[in-house]
């Protein structure tokens, strides 16, 4: 078995292949996520980072290349429940109580009722919402809903968490709080994470590695290793932190610049 949680090899994704509205969303991307590693995908809108995540999740099939999750093909990993997913919208089912929302994946995997409930409460304790188990989603704030969504994604102990801008709709204060919580949760569960964001500080604060993507077609422009040790609130004000933020920002600017030069040459 490999010790890669995710192994993406030479993947391209073309939407509407062969038709006039054909779009090359991802072009020959290769990347790996080691077990227990936190990797962020960052880039401007339309660079294919969400597409990349959905490819890893096997929600769509790549046009070419191969994707391995936990040492098996992505399709098999999806069937085996090897990953949990969280989206920008918490996407809780409003007709289910908070606990029953967390139980949803367990229900689909035919766990028995008592075990489901027990695990749901355990997960809600992890995200510090066990008091709200019997409330309904619309009684919770946006940040709390998002924590429930994370509890739901982790309920069946998937080992890999795929997150698509999960904090994108939250205000800055809540967002920083959620980042701290996520780091704690990952430390407690030993989860690997692939995290899509367009916030540079968020990517740097959370990640072991930041993958910078360039748009049209989506390619990897740079990979920034982040070694800031154990994160704390002080990390956000550390010089090393700002240096990494600058490094990622320059990587993002790099292709914007070449983009402009190319378009001038084209004319």
């Amino acid at each position, binding site marked *: 078995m490999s010790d890669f949680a995710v192994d993406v090899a030479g993947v391209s994704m073309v939407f509407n292949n062969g038709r006039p509205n054909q779009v090359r969303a991802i072009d020959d991307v290769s990347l790996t996520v080691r077990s227990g590693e936190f990797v962020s995908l960052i880039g401007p809108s339309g660079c294919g980072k969400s597409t990349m995540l959905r490819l890893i999740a096997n929600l769509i099939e790549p046009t070419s290349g191969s994707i391995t999750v936990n040492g098996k093909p992505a399709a098999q990993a999806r069937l085996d429940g090897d990953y949990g997913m969280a989206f920008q919208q918490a996407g809780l*089912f409003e007709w289910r109580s908070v606990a029953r929302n967390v139980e949803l994946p367990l229900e*689909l995997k035919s766990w028995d009722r008592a075990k489901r409930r027990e695990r749901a409460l355990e997960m809600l304790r992890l995200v510090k919402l066990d008091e709200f188990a019997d409330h*309904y989603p619309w009684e919770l704030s946006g940040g709390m809903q998002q924590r429930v969504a994370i509890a739901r994604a982790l309920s069946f102990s998937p080992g890999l968490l795929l997150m698509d801008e999960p904090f994108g709709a939250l205000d800055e204060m809540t967002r920083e709080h959620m980042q701290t919580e996520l780091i704690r949760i990952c430390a407690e569960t030993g989860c690997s994470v692939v995290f899509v964001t367009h916030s540079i500080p968020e990517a740097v604060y959370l990640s072991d590695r930041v993958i910078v993507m360039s748009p049209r077609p989506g390619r990897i422009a740079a990979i920034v290793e982040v070694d800031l040790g154990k994160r704390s609130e002080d990390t956000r004000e550390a010089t090393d932190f700002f240096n990494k933020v600058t490094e990622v920002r320059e990587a993002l600017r790099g292709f914007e610049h070449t983009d402009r030069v190319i378009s001038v040459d084209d004319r």
Partner: protein
Amino acid sequence: MGDRQASRARMRARARRVVMFALALLLVCAGWELYKMVGPEAGGKIFGAQLLPKSENRAMPHVWDMVQRFGRPEQRGSSRTVGQAVAEGAWYTFRLASVGLLLGVLVGMGLAILMARFRVVERGLLPWLIVSQTVPLIALAPLVVSWGGRLHIGGFTWQRWMSVSVIAAFLAFFPIAIGALRGLTSPPAAAVELLASYAAPWSATLFKLRLPAAVPYLMPALRLAANAAVIGTIVAEISTGLKGGIGRLVLEYMREATGDPAKVFTAVVGASVLGLVMAGLVGLLDNYVSRNRRREATI
């Protein structure tokens, strides 16, 4: 504290609704009597067209005459009062309409689930559903009766009341099918993807996601369907000549309208009450099913 306040507010809202209903009823009666006072006895023309109804007692009996008529015997010398006859007829019609509604819900849901599952079915079927509702009931009734009459499966023989329920179902299934289709396809792509990420089969997305998400769409559809089932049953009773229901009573009492004008209105009132009861039952179901859902703030 908050709970008690909320329940008191709910009680007040309920009381207000009862009062409003009584007021509305009173207003209708008052309007009726007022027109009888000022309206022309022999009807009237506006711009040459016969628009104003006659206000004489044969065409518009007094409200109190109608109320009294409920308590008097149906025929001279019969032991049954009109009130009893109307209640029995309404109960019979209610049962037929309920069977029709149930059938309509089953067929409507089935079609909606098929259409939600297969886009091809939706494209092929939906126009025909709309066409089906343009068929006049009066034309349909004898057809259903004669088709049903030819049906013999084992010991089962078709009863005439079944034709009536089938015709009611024919009207009731349509709002259910349309409402359910909208509801079943209402979940956002992210919710569908979430279930796909759990490798959930289509049946699981139906039961865990699509059906619960369809509830807010289904309840108004069910109200329409209940109404349609009652109207369909009454019209079908009349056009198939089925005895025992309120539709038949309307027909019979109509024949006596010249001599006993208040009588036919008792049957009409009975039919209206039947419709209200049906709507009330759907309302109760709605309250039960939506008890844990967010409500729009009602002030």
